[in-house]
């Protein structure tokens, strides 16, 4: 079984968003099984259109990184509380492949993770 890398996204500012997607795509490219977890404060990152609209000069395209992570088997887990507390966020608004989970499910998903990051 592949080694695992768990990355937690704690917000929706560029400083919270770029590192998870850069390190997540790198880890996936290096053969790690990547699990990305978005707490409510980072919940809107998984809303359709969010990644397309965050663009910083000289920084990589976030959608491209997200697609690469997904293509290489990475998972995007959203804390289910986000659907209760993030304004205007419903299941239908989420990017394809996002999974709504509770905390215990996240723990199960990262069982045995070799690397963990939090931003």
């Amino acid at each position, binding site marked *: 079984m592949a080694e695992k890398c768990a990355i937690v996204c704690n917000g929706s500012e560029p400083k919270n968003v770029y590192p998870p997607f850069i390190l997540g795509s*790198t880890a996936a490219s290096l053969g790690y099984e990547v699990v990305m977890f978005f707490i409510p404060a980072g919940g809107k990152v998984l809303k359709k259109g969010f990644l397309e609209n965050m663009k910083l000069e000289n920084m990589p395209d976030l959608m*491209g990184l997200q697609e690469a992570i997904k293509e290489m088997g990475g998972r995007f887990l959203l804390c289910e509380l986000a659907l209760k507390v993030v304004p205007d966020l419903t299941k239908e608004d989420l990017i394809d492949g996002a999974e709504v989970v509770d905390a215990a499910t996240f723990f199960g998903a990262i069982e045995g993770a070799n690397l963990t990051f939090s931003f």
Partner: protein
Amino acid sequence: MAEVELDTSGLACPMPIVKMSRKRREMKPGDVMKVISTADGFKNSVKVWCDREKAELLEFKEEGGKLVARVKI
């Protein structure tokens, strides 16, 4: 054994490595990937990628101001 070229000129971290992994999915064992990069960290990252992905770095050189790696999958 096919040789394919992947030009990542102008792309910074992590794109060269990400593109290598995506390209690899279209290749067969024994095929060679020639990767061109202008990213500062590429010389090291291609070595890490080869170690992790059990690929062989056949050649690494600078050519016309660009970094060129040939990697056997």
